[in-house]
């Protein structure tokens, strides 16, 4: 039996109107990525010469404002993780700018910083990785794991670190007493909370979450999504949220960027993108999501063909071999990303003339569902009843 999770303070549902979402667009963006490229060389032959380039990220631009959640979505291999890793400079981009507004208001280009200059940036920007099992050192207790970023930044006082770790454990819904325990004593969802606590140690303003909930079970996933939203509101965090599950992306983000073979093909506010997509690829992605309602059994439309090879993409629009709307120009001219409506960017020659299907009406969602005692948005679930703790093999605290 894993240690129990303390319930979060009562959650307020967040209003949906633009000004109540917590996004502050009045200031300069917190993060602005301009023309980011990352090309990986393909080595071949026995001299290991470069015989080609994988254009994993190819001219990507986007902004993240204070308090905003921007999601990157797209099929496997489209360059989401590579983009995220370039932003935090886990890898060096091939070209482009990663403009980040520091706490003092100065804007720095993270892509051009020297290694030594990165450390202060990593106070402000933190990454949460997908695998809650792989990313925690099994030989360190929570105090060391969560307090480590403080130590690295020069906080030598153990008491200070303990105070901060206790505060963080509270924040992510774990008991402060657990700080002397080791990761194996925790369930998958609790480990992901630990990873989140560690990312928050230095009070970052931007959190990059790469598939942070993908490996988790639905009930745990819901807990972590709630936690991420709660923290965003309370700490005014911004997230760059990388995911492939469109239901989750729809739930959490203010804006969404859809990537295809290293490029952003559509970027818009979440509602606009889901209800009125303007890129055929976005529309195809939405059509493929299985609706969780047996009364709405539609014909499931996949996309014919395969994702283009990023080492040898087709000419013109990369999507043209799979696009049902492709015309002659699509085969030769790469479509640039254009603002076709205020705040709605699309890379498609035919964006204005096409009317594409989105997710459709919200009827199924609005139909009242049977009451689930203790599991409604208004009433947060009661604390778990105390379960007799079985003989523990955990490392004693």
């Amino acid at each position, binding site marked *: 039996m894993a240690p129990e*999770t303390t*319930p979060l303070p009562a959650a307020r549902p967040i209003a*949906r109107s633009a000004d109540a*979402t917590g996004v502050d667009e009045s200031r300069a963006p917190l993060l602005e990525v301009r023309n980011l490229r990352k090309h990986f060389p393909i080595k071949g032959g026995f001299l290991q010469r470069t015989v080609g380039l994988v254009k994993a990220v190819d001219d990507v631009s986007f902004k993240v404002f204070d308090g905003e959640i921007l999601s990157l979505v797209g*099929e*496997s291999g489209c360059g989401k993780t590579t983009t995220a890793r370039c932003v935090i400079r886990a890898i060096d981009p091939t070209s482009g700018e990663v403009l980040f507004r520091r706490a003092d208001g100065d804007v720095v280009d993270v892509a051009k910083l020297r290694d030594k200059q990165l450390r202060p940036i990593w106070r402000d920007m933190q990454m949460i990785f997908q695998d809650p099992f792989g990313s925690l050192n099994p030989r360190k207790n929570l105090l060391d794991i969560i307090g480590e970023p403080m130590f690295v930044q020069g906080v030598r006082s153990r008491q200070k670190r303990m105070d901060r770790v206790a505060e963080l454990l509270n924040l992510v819904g774990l008991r402060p007493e657990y700080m002397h325990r080791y990761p194996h004593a925790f*369930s*998958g*969802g*609790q480990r992901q909370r630990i990873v989140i606590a560690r990312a928050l140690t230095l009070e970052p303003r931007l959190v990059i979450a790469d598939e942070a909930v993908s490996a988790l*079970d*639905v*009930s745990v996933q*819901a*807990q972590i*999504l709630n936690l991420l*939203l709660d923290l965003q509101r309370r700490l005014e965090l911004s997230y760059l949220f990388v995911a*492939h599950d*469109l*239901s989750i992306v*729809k*739930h*959490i983000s203010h804006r969404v960027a859809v990537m295809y073979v290293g490029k952003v093909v559509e970027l818009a506010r979440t509602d606009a993108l*889901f209800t009125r997509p303007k890129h055929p690829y976005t529309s*195809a992605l939405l059509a*493929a*999501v*299985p*609706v*969780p*309602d*047996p009364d*709405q*059994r*539609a*014909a*499931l*439309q*996949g*996309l*014919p*063909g395969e*994702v283009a090879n990023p080492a040898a993409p087709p000419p013109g629009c990369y999507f043209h*071999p799979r696009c049902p709307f492709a015309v002659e120009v699509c085969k030769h001219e790469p479509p640039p990303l254009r603002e076709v409506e205020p705040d709605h960017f699309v890379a498609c020659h035919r964006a204005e003339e096409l009317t594409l299907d989105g*997710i459709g009406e919200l009827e*199924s*969602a609005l139909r009242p*569902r*049977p009451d*689930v005692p*203790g*599991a*409604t*948005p208004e009433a947060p*679930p*009661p*604390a*778990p009843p105390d*379960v007799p703790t079985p003989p523990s*093999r955990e490392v004693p605290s």
Partner: protein
Amino acid sequence: MQQTPTVPEARAFAVRSRTDLGEPILSVRGLKTHFVMDEGTVRAVDGVSFDVHPGEVVGIVGESGCGKSVALKSVLRLIQKPGRIVAGEIMYRRPGRNGARPELELDLATLPPLGRRIRQIRGGDIALIPQEPMASFSPLHTIGDQIVEAIRLHDPMSVADARKLAIAKLREVGMPSPEQRFRAYSWQLSGGLRQRAIIAMALSCNPAILVADEPTTAIDVTTQAQVLQLLRVLQQEHGSAIVFITHDLGVIAQLADHVVVMYLGRVMEQGPVRSIFHTPRHPYTRALLQSVPSVHSEARVQLPTIAGGIPHPLYRPPGCPFHPRCPDAMPGTCDVRVPAMVDDGSGQPVACFLHHDVAEADDGA
């Protein structure tokens, strides 16, 4: 450059009712599969019962570790040490031709796990699409050779005939240039094409039941849609029953006729897909349904969650396995007695004391 696989014609897929489907071809009763280890006994499957009717699509849902894979591997007798079926019945009734009486009636739980009998049934009568896609094909042989071998294991025919049949199956699942792909190795195929090859192999002996363990979890949503559509079309054309595992409720809603909800090695509730989604009766089913965000639900509100976490497999709670997390748990009852699975005649049996007062006879001993 990749060729475009032919997408099966997009069709809607009606939910079928059990009353139209005849007697079950598979009846699992009181199945218990335990793993006995030094640290203790993991009761991975601890009293599971469900039926599969001819041509029916049965979906099994539940969170990670609840015993879904172990239950289906037990049916196919693929459980290895330290695991063992310790109780229960797995009645398989091979349908006779043209709806005649079953020509074979057999409790698979009694067969020697390595014997010829079960090897004939596995692959021939009941085919498996395993959870790990790489486990289906050996990397050392072409997919064509492996399908030919599978066909000839169950049906003595010439290599040339088996080859023709294999290519026909590859074509049927929408594999582009099947003659060429016959000579490909599984690692040369993309995720979507590999999944098609696995389905072609599983279908090569016209199984009465296709068992698929998370057939779409490892693939992208666009490819998933194609594979689901393919399964629907093949099901309609061959009439095979399909039993599949998933934890995606969207996939369940789109594919299943009948749903089995598992928690900690036991079935909590089962019933027709519409009843499970619209009138769930078990507190766990209800909580599970509410905790998933959908593209149709309101954005950025707090999602309902299930309190607590899944217990460690070695430390199962006494009584109803869900009681430590259940908002409706009744102290003195739910933490003491194990609720039995009872059908009140609605076709939606549920194991919960909110709905009846019948406890399991051996109470989990």
